[in-house]
């Protein structure tokens, strides 16, 4: 019975690259990884949005309407629904003049109990220190 903790760090804005979306879909895959592991072994995935990456969390993305593409907003909501720990850097939101009103905070409509945590960068550093491996996107 062992736990391996992974930290996914999203540093770039959405859409111009596939990376932020792949960060979220790979992190979500932590919920189905058991099929490859021994009983009781688990992998956890924390996700942190930093720098321009916080722009992924903007509310009301219309990617599906306009480009028939799942929005990163929807992927963030899926991560919450699957009980992942989602951190957003407060200093970076401040830098862009964004508040909690501007970003995805929960996925109540899907019945998710987890909520996005807006935290100082120091908290994200702590997460990075605490995980076994880091994946920067």
């Amino acid at each position, binding site marked *: 019975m062992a736990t391996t903790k992974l930290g996914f760090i999203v540093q770039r804005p959405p859409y111009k690259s596939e990376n932020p979306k792949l960060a979220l879909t*790979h992190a*979500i*895959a932590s919920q189905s*990884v058991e099929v490859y*592991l021994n009983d009781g072994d688990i992998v956890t995935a924390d996700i942190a949005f930093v720098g321009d990456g916080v722009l992924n969390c903007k509310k009301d993305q219309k990617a599906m309407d306009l480009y028939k593409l799942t929005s990163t907003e929807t992927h963030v909501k899926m991560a919450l629904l699957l009980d992942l720990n989602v951190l957003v850097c407060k200093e970076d939101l401040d830098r862009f003049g964004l508040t909690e009103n501007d970003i995805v905070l929960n996925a109540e409509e899907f019945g998710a109990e987890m909520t996005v945590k807006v935290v100082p960068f120091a908290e994200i550093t702590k997460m990075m220190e605490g995980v076994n491996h*880091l994946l920067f*996107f």
Partner: protein
Amino acid sequence: MGKFTIGCFSSLVGSMSLDFAVKLAGTALEKGHKVDLWVSGNATMLSLKGQRAFKDYSHLEKPLQELMQKGLTVTACEACAEARGYHKEHTIEGFKRHSMDWYLASAFDADRVLHIGGE
């Protein structure tokens, strides 16, 4: 000797990130490490067989097959490949295809992970 999991997501023929990843994987194998290579996103292009070897383009099929014979495990993200039209029958022999959780499972008991995202 340890286990080394390398993930490569950035792919463009021309970005040379896959060239880097394959060379690094080969070097780690030579030093006696166990190496898993995961390709996702555009990097799944690596799994496609029948790429013509022009000198103007990165061409990794041959070095990859040599490394697989030396024990390299290499796996492509199945959904990323399918979305691009790279189906099972187009895949280089020995190249595995799995869902994304395979990568996380590989990281589970890895001593080191190098995730090449970027771009």
